[in-house]
């Protein structure tokens, strides 16, 4: 038990540091392809962190949907737009960016202060009556998804359909 917990800590800390590092690399690299690849690393690390939270379903969905489908789309679009013509973003130092980044850092300080100073109360036993540690298994998520949340699930499928239709209409060439 002790060894398992130590292993969990090790996984969490290493994956958290790697995800922080790769997302920092993502926002600082000039070449969009490098940004996309670093973001894929960050998504994989987040998937592993979901595993430490006992959320197997979301971890697999994270790797499949984010690291697989969405990043594939993004890399595909980067390939379609001509980077050499677009030119890789120049390193331009501007006061507005610095001030903006500083204000965003203040946002982090606020989040950190809120997390540290506030202890959320409430019952920690769960409303959906689950066995301990079973909150994220495919079984419990599936039972909720096709039971209590069936209507939102159907709406989500309609949303995806609308997204597909919208993408086709937007990307269709209009030269007739």
């Amino acid at each position, binding site marked *: 038990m002790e060894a398992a*917990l*130590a292993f969990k*800590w090790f996984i969490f800390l290493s994956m*958290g540091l790697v*995800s*922080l590092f790769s*997302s*920092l690399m*993502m*926002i600082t690299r000039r070449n*969009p392809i490098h940004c996309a690849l670093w*973001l894929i690393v*960050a998504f994989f690390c*987040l998937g592993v962190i979901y595993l*430490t*939270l006992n*959320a197997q*379903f*979301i971890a697999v*969905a994270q790797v499949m949907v*984010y690291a697989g489908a*969405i990043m594939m*789309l*993004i890399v595909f*679009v980067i390939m*379609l737009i001509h980077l050499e013509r*677009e030119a890789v973003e120049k390193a331009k130092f501007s006061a507005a960016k610095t001030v*903006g*980044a500083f*204000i*965003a*850092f203040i946002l*982090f300080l606020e*989040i*950190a202060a809120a*997390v540290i100073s506030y202890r*959320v109360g409430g*019952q*920690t*036993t*769960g*409303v*959906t009556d*689950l066995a*301990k*540690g079973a*909150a*994220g298994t495919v079984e*419990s998520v599936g039972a*909720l998804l096709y039971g209590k*949340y069936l209507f*939102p699930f159907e709406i*989500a499928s309609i*949303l995806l359909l609308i*997204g597909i239709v*919208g*993408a*086709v209409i*937007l*990307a269709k060439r209009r030269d007739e």
Partner: protein
Amino acid sequence: MADIPYSLYLLLSGALFTIGAIGVITRRSAIIIFMCIELMLNAVNLSFMAFSYHYKEASGNIFAFFVMVVAAAEAAVGLAIILTVFKNRATLNVDQINTLKY
């Protein structure tokens, strides 16, 4: 050794969210801004999962699932918009795509 406190997860989530926000503010390429928004959505998902684990309550997983669904739909439409903008304006620099401002 105690279990990982959920506040550590929330701190990581806040740090990732902030990094995404800094990217949105400092980068000028539309597609990189798009990637930063995806990172921010992921950070929010992480805090959903942390609360879900803390409260032994599977609804957080459902919320994260719906965030993923919305992100997928957003990726499809957003990338189509980016492609169309690039076809019409031959640039992705958001400082130059300012027709709606005037």
